[in-house]
């Protein structure tokens, strides 16, 4: 072999191992860098406690009745102690709307309808049979998108009740293993945000404050809306699941969730665009591309109470993400109801028959 190639290969080998040696200690089993000892201790204590509870347990899909009564899931596998999933209920949205507790699924462990799943809060607390709250799971993770058999989510991450720690996961509806003992900073931020949303969109923004009344939401409108049809009402009054807004464009889970909720006939394709709703339930726009010719629009909206979940403004699309046309945004994106409206008004996307509402300021 060419000695220069051999030399290069040896250097590559050294470089990769050198790189591997630079990996900081894990936050999963060892000491996480730059974390206060007190926090580590608390976290570890929590994990130990959770593991003790949880490893003795198995979380099984047991669902809550309309009256809030816990039920055990059918047929917990051998080796696992049945637990319940207890709906905390009574979430309060930013507009004061309350929702929850979880409506009842089939007590026999049958199929949850899309409507039943839609009506649930985005997060469901997970508890063992002693009602010790083990953590929180995402509804979508737990039930899929419905209609769904009970607990079809497979492995579901379970967050601590403060939303900052992922304490484990539910495996195929019958296991709870404390796989995650700590979270990285990125996870923590995501969990914080998700948990805040679950608590009624009370998101403590870690970005500079935004003027809620003049909040600029970058979204895109696409021809897709012409094809798909009317969007559904906001599934959670006053609260917008983050996944519906700026999901992983190549992941598809969010769209899968939305697709089934909305019954959008996307042909099984897990591709954008994603409808983006404002907190008042109106369609703010679409994120993503139909793969043809996306048109981008910047919409300024005002929420019902002057607050908008940060998920609307977090992870703004990066120029170049979707299309080179991003910077050439057009203010003339299409709303669903494209009927004639007086000057200053636009078609309301959700009112039928088509009605007009005050125009949102659209700026390219």
């Amino acid at each position, binding site marked *: 072999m060419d000695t*220069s*190639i051999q030399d*290069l*290969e040896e*250097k*590559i*080998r*050294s*470089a*990769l*191992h*050198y*790189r*591997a040696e*630079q*990996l*900081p200690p*894990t*936050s*999963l*089993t060892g000491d996480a860098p730059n974390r206060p000892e007190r926090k580590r201790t608390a976290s570890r204590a929590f994990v130990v406690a959770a593991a003790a509870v949880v490893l003795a347990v198995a979380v099984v899909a047991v669902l809550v009745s309309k009256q809030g009564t816990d039920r055990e899931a059918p047929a917990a596998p051998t080796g696992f102690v049945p637990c319940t999933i207890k709906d905390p209920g009574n979430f309060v949205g930013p507009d004061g709307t309350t929702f929850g507790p979880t409506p009842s699924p089939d007590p026999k462990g049958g199929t949850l309808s899309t409507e039943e799943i839609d009506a649930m809060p985005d997060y469901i607390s997970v508890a063992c049979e002693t009602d010790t709250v083990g953590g929180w799971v995402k509804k979508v993770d737990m039930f899929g998108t419905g209609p769904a058999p009970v607990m079809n989510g*497979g*492995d579901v*991450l379970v967050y601590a009740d403060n939303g900052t720690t*992922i304490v484990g*996961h539910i*495996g*195929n509806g019958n296991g709870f*293993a404390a*796989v*995650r003992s*700590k*979270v*990285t*900073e*990125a*996870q923590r*931020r995501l969990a914080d945000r998700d948990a805040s949303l679950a608590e009624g969109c009370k998101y403590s923004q870690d970005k500079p404050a935004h003027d809620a009344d003049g909040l600029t939401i970058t979204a895109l409108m696409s021809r897709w809306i012409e094809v798909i049809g009317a969007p559904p009402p906001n599934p959670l009054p006053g609260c917008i699941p983050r996944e519906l807004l700026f999901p*992983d*464009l*190549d*992941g598809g889970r969010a769209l899968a969730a939305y697709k089934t909720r909305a019954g959008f006939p996307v042909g099984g394709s897990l591709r954008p665009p994603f409808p983006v709703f404002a907190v008042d339930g109106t369609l703010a726009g679409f994120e993503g591309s139909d793969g043809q010719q996306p048109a981008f629009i910047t919409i300024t909206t005002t929420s019902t109470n002057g607050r908008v979940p940060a998920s609307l403004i*977090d*992870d*703004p*699309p*990066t120029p170049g*993400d979707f299309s080179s046309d991003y910077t050439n945004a057009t203010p003339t994106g299409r709303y669903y109801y494209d009927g004639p409206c007086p000057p200053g008004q636009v078609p309301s996307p959700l009112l039928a028959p088509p009605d007009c509402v005050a125009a949102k300021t659209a700026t390219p």
Partner: protein
Amino acid sequence: MEPSVDPMTHRSVQAVSRESTFEGFYEAQLDWARRLTFVLTGDDLFVDDLVQDAFVRLRPRFDQLDNPRAYLRVTLVNGVRRHRRRERRREQAHASLAHPSPEEDGALDDLVDRIDRLPYRQRAVLVLRYFENLSEAEIAESLGCRPGTVKSLASRALARLREET
């Protein structure tokens, strides 16, 4: 006496036995999985996330797998690929989370940087070959491609690195 070796995993039977449970496997493979993920991503921020996601994906299948380590490797390689796609889009949003670089070794860092800039599949081939010491066939299996493709990717990666040297 030579320790007995598991023909499937090429690892000692004792080690394989310890890892017969998911928990044991997790404990035993965590460090390796993190290092592999790190050299694949070149970014420590999401290493733990990616590794945990891979373990979570593996877990329900663990009992059915003859070689969970190989399965985990494939899961990691694919997970990193998805992650890199996402990160390109989220780079700006997550810039504030970037970690400062540790002390650097100029020459090696330079080479690492050049490896980082390679297209992901080329980079993955280098990592699997020179960090994991896998054969072309094993790399092909991990990447879901043919051995010939592995050879081609490796050749292009090496050529590119040589050009830049």
